[in-house]
Every structure is written in structure tokens, then in C-alpha cells.
């Protein structure tokens, strides 16, 4: 039974459809629309998918393909949103229409990038000075930024940045300057992305999946 639908995100306007390695072994993503909003989905046989590394990667890859390769704005869902039927999805699109519209405005033309600054083993670093240097380089370029959890003692900084696509080069250059800074013997800079802007979208999807 593959009557359930796994949702990657929500687009505005023309439907998205292509063949790909999708979550849980599906081989195609397509769009279920309500008026102009469309949920990008693939078929699945459960409403509670297990988050394996491979499927989490497929979820990310599909969002990236829509956003970067196909140049479409998409409001991303976190991994794991699966619904019982097309009707349930249309109800969600109808019910959360204003929230999706607002989120669409926030993400249109923008990408998310991640930065982690990791203290090298046994190095002693001035966390405040590093935070200050990073903020000075990046905050003026970014449209928004949010802190993420410091899940390791080695992490000095962990932030996500939302930037306009046309500012990507300026952002890359600023990161390169940080990597070349005096402190580079003490820290390692881990720069990731682009991602769909998960960290900047706050759409809660209701209970009746």
C-alpha cells in the first residue's frame, strides 16, 4: 500500500514533478495542489517514516534540487511529515494558507547556509573574540541569522544564516577571510549548505495527518 504521501515542502504556482530517488524507496516526486499552493510529495506506505541517514539525505537532496537546480522557492518541511491521503494534504494547504504565504515571502530568493567554528583539540581560544569577528563579517550580508545548539564542548559557534542568492559570493568571500584569520591554528571552520531554509520557517502542521 502506497496510498499515503510523504511531504518535502510547499511551492507556489506551477506544479513540480520529476523522477528521482525519493524517501522510502519511491522513484518520483510530484505535486498535490490546492489553488496556487502545492505540496511536493512522494508515495509512501506509512505515516510514521523512520529517519535513516539515507532518507534524510534524500529529503535534503530533493529540496535542494527544487530550490537550486529548478530555481523554485519552496517552504521546506522537516523530515518525517507523511499524510494519510491527498484530501488531508489539501485540507492542510487550505487551513495553513496564510502561514504558507508568509513563509513563502520569507524564503523566496533566499538560501540557508550553516557555520560551525570548532576549537581544535587542546587549543585555547577566546570565544567572545571569535563570535565578534564572525558577526562583523557575516551579519551585514545575511538577511537573518539564528544560533543553533552548542552540542559539543569543542563548538565555539554554531549559526544558520539566511541570505539572498545574489549575496552568496560575498558571503563565501567573508567565510574565506574568517578561515584565513590569525586564529586558524586554534579553530576549524565548517561551512555547509546551501540548504532549504529550514531554520527560518515556522509553519506548524496540524494533528490530523
Amino acid at each position: 500500500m502506497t496510498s499515503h504521501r510523504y511531504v518535502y515542502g510547499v511551492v507556489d504556482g506551477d506544479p513540480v514533478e520529476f523522477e528521482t530517488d525519493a524517501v522510502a524507496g519511491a522513484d518520483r516526486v510530484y505535486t498535490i495542489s490546492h489553488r496556487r499552493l502545492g505540496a511536493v510529495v512522494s508515495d509512501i506506505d506509512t505515516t510514521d517514516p523512520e529517519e535513516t541517514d539515507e532518507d534524510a539525505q534524500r529529503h535534503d537532496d530533493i529540496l535542494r534540487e527544487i530550490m537550486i537546480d529548478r530555481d523554485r522557492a519552496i517552504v521546506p518541511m522537516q523530515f518525517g511529515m507523511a499524510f494519510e491521503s491527498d484530501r488531508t494534504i489539501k485540507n492542510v494547504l487550505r487551513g495553513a494558507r496564510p502561514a504558507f504565504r508568509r513563509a513563502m515571502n520569507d524564503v523566496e530568493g533566499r538560501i540557508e547556509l550553516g557555520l560551525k567554528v570548532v576549537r581544535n583539540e587542546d587549543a585555547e581560544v577566546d570565544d567572545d573574540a571569535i563570535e565578534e569577528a564572525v558577526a562583523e563579517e557575516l551579519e551585514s550580508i545575511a538577511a537573518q541569522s539564528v544560533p543553533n545548539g552548542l552540542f559539543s564542548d569543542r563548538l565555539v559557534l554554531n549559526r544558520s544564516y539566511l541570505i539572498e542568492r545574489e549575496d552568496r559570493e560575498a558571503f563565501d568571500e567573508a567565510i574565506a577571510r574568517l578561515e584565513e584569520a590569525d586564529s586558524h591554528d586554534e579553530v576549524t571552520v565548517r561551512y555547509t549548505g546551501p540548504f532549504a531554509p529550514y531554520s527560518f520557517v515556522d509553519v506548524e502542521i496540524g494533528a490530523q495527518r
Partner: protein
Amino acid sequence: MFVLDDLLFRPFVGIVDTLHTLALDEMYDIDALEDELKENQLLYEIGDRSEEEYRERKEELEAEIEIAQEVHERLSSGRVEVKS
């Protein structure tokens, strides 16, 4: 002082039970294990941990998280047997 009140006003078996629950909570701290899982990934990504070390630690941590989740489920359903 939730713990103190709890200890003072519950009978002896209750004290053992409470201490045991607190110890289990600390031993099976899911958030701490998940943080360690993320740290393992990060250290692998920046080249501080070999692929073999990374995979081995990942498997260990995932198994520990599974056990911790089971323990917490049992704690919340009161099915953990307390032996003194």
C-alpha cells in the same frame, strides 16, 4: 525542592524508588547521548575522527539511545522493578 519534599513525604520504598529513578534518568540521558551523536558526526566531518572510529561510535551511541528510550518508556509506565 521537589526532590526533598518527595523524599520526606513518601514511605521508604518511595525513597528507594525516587533515588533509583533519578539515577536511571542520569544514566540514560537521551539528550546527552544525542548531543554525543552530533559531536561524533562533527568530529568526523572535520577530520578529527576516522571513518572507522566514527561508524563504531555511531553504532554504540544509537544502541545506547535505543536502550535509554526503552528505559524512559518503562519509567513513565511504572514498569521498572526496584530491588533494594
